[in-house]
């Protein structure tokens, strides 16, 4: 039992984590990096595109932050014309991106362990796990872990204004647990009561309300923040559905 749980979770988490981080690099990371320029004050929200490229070049030179040839050549390189400005220092930051790969895999193995524990509980109640049902498990994971917290907190782009971190983390964790319990009841409950309880559980954190900042005065532009939110939810749903499918696939393989 333990071997089956660990093996399915490791393989599925590894695969989904790699998919998640690949999509993150392609679609989310450029927005994150651009937002950090606003967060650090390298770029200001209302400055013109030419001024942005100029700002960035001068600050890189004056602070001597980088010895990267790509940035040193930046003066004869028109940053405003394309989105290289989102990645000012170099194409790939091996340490930073390597750590992202590591942590994406680590996080998804964690999610996978919880999911296969759910498989085992479901199976002990005579619920069969199939690859197709893995799709639903993945969707449910996405709703519980990504969509429900994002519904209350919004997505946290660097440079967004936000409430106290500890309060947000507690709200996040409570929302994930309550939503997961609610979805479990929707999926496996019998009769009308489980549905009623499920609605209450899923609604509770939103009735209570997520912690929000006193004012919205973060330096990140709203356009960037909005794109970041939709992109990261899109990437998450792909990663979670993959996780469900892979976990169910490895789980059913281990049966034979």
């Amino acid at each position, binding site marked *: *039992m*333990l071997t089956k*749980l*660990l093996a399915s*979770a490791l393989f599925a988490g590894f695969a989904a984590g790699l998919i*998640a*981080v690949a999509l*993150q690099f392609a679609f*989310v*990371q450029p927005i*994150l990096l651009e937002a950090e320029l606003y967060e650090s004050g390298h770029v200001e929200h209302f400055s013109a595109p030419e001024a942005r490229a100029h700002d960035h070049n001068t600050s890189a030179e004056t602070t001597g932050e980088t010895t990267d040839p790509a940035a040193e050549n930046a003066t004869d390189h028109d940053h405003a014309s394309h989105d290289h400005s989102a990645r000012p220092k170099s194409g790939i930051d091996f340490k*930073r*991106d390597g*750590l*992202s790969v*590591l*942590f*994406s895999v*680590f*996080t998804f*193995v*964690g*999610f*996978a*362990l*919880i*999911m*296969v*524990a*759910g498989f*085992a*509980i479901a199976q*002990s109640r005579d619920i069969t796990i199939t690859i197709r049902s893995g799709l639903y498990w993945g969707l449910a994971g996405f709703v519980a*872990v*990504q969509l429900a*917290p*994002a519904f209350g*907190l919004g*997505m*946290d*782009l*660097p440079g967004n204004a*936000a409430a106290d*971190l500890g309060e*947000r*983390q507690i709200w*996040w*964790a409570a929302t994930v647990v309550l939503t997961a319990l609610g979805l479990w009841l929707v999926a496996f409950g019998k009769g009308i009561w489980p549905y009623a309880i499920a609605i209450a559980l899923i609604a509770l954190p939103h009735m209570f309300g997520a912690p929000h900042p006193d004012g919205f005065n973060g330096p990140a532009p709203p356009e960037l923040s909005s794109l970041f939110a939709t992109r*990261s*939810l899109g*990437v*998450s749903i792909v990663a979670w559905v993959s996780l469900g499918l892979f976990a169910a696939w490895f789980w059913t393989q281990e049966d034979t």
Partner: protein
Amino acid sequence: MRESATNPSGVTGKDYKMTTATKTATLANTNILTITFVALLGATMVFLAGHAQSAALHDAAHDVRHSSGFPCH
């Protein structure tokens, strides 16, 4: 695999039914323990990657935290 183990309670064939029941219960308990262990391991990993506020962990997991909706800073 459990059948091959010697019966610790020393119950003979007469009480076979009861022994089976006990064994099933023990097996179920082991499974519950295993499942709980695996779920807690997963939750700990998610907490470390997503919530723990050590500076080194925060910096290393920063981009993943933002991209996957964890409250980061």
